[in-house]
């Protein structure tokens, strides 16, 4: 696992553990390897409340590609 991925997973866990006490629901996350054009890429994890289906937030990490 690359350093960036370790950081992303760590931050995702921190985010989920931070959001969880705010709602009685549990969060799901789905991550995407994104390309924004112009040599800019990123990983985005979409954090979703699995009771309501609402998007609670995003965890992003950007890098040049």
């Amino acid at each position, binding site marked *: 696992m690359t350093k960036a991925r370790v950081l992303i997973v760590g931050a995702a866990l921190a985010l989920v553990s931070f959001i969880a006490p705010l709602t009685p629901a549990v969060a799901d996350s789905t991550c*995407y390897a994104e390309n*924004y054009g112009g040599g800019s890429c990123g990983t985005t994890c979409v954090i979703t409340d699995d009771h309501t289906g609402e998007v609670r*937030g995003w965890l992003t990490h950007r890098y040049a590609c």
Partner: protein
Amino acid sequence: MLISRASERRGARTRGIVGLALLVLAAPALRGAQPARPAKEPRSTAPRSLGASGEDFGPQFLGTDGKGKVFLLRAATLEVFALDAAKGLVPAARLKRSPALSAEPAHAAVMGRSSDDWWLLQGAGVWHTTSEGPQALPEVHWRVESLSRLGGGEPVVGVMPFGVGRPIGDRSFAAGDAAPLLLSFSGSAWRVLATEGEIPSSGAVNKEFARINQERMVALAPGATKGLWVADRYRFRVRKLSPAGKVLTSLKGSQEIRLENDKDGKATQRKLVQMGDKAGGAIANLAVPAILGLTEARDGNLYLVTNRNGIALERYDPVAEQVDRLKLQLGYSGRFTMASGSDGLYLAGFGGQTGRWFLSWNTLAAADWRKVEDVEIGGPASRAAQ
């Protein structure tokens, strides 16, 4: 002379009687001229609960067949039930699972032509599941956010303007190009059905990530016979598109995206931002959803569950060209899937434990609907449609 005086007396008596009659007849109008009493507060309607799963069954989604029979899919187990206001959940089908499909959370699903034919947005991909087993559709190559079908036809996805799963150095799109909003699946490939705005620059993505996401998140519902309804999640803007992607109808209310303004919300955002780093970070979504779910009934009316000054059912009647609102008594304010059954309207919260509800057509006919004034209704020739 005598005749003349008698005639005058009769004339005076007649004028008196006519005047009294006019006074009696005019009385209601005179009462109406008094200062108007304030309009009564609209009465709210409580949908009938059809229960909730006692255990955590994960996401649930509603669909309906051509006869108005309603079905419910439990995405975690791929069990399908007939949902009936009198009988509740009745097992109807079980779709075949695969390890790849069950490993990811389900975000959306739409029923195909029968109860054992569903399309699922699961993880980052779209699947077609039947009793013969799931089949992955080709990669969309944009971040998929929502899923539906063109009325009676092919699947459609709502996407964010961010390329996904593309090779490094991919030059097939650039900032400033038209940004795809909807793609439909032709049977072998995804094609752009509708675009909106431009693909943002990487600088704009960095600075306005939450806003770009909030402005482009849509809820989708198939047209009862053809086409597709597209509703912005965080502001009141709804459009009906033809199968070719042309705007047929548009409904436009306030375009402001409301943010949670409570102290906790702001604190959440500050803390999440502190967790981030210069290259990215954790961003809380503080936008308050405006449209929670929608479905088109068989008579052509569109029903939406909205969160504008409280949870309500809103109905767009395309014949009267009018939107009406009905306050709902409901202890749930997350996303819904909705289905128009032969006996009434069915609603399901996103998670199985949140609940399922029913409103009969008779209940809706007798309910206290109030006309919504602040919605602009437009067609293809109207600027509001754009």
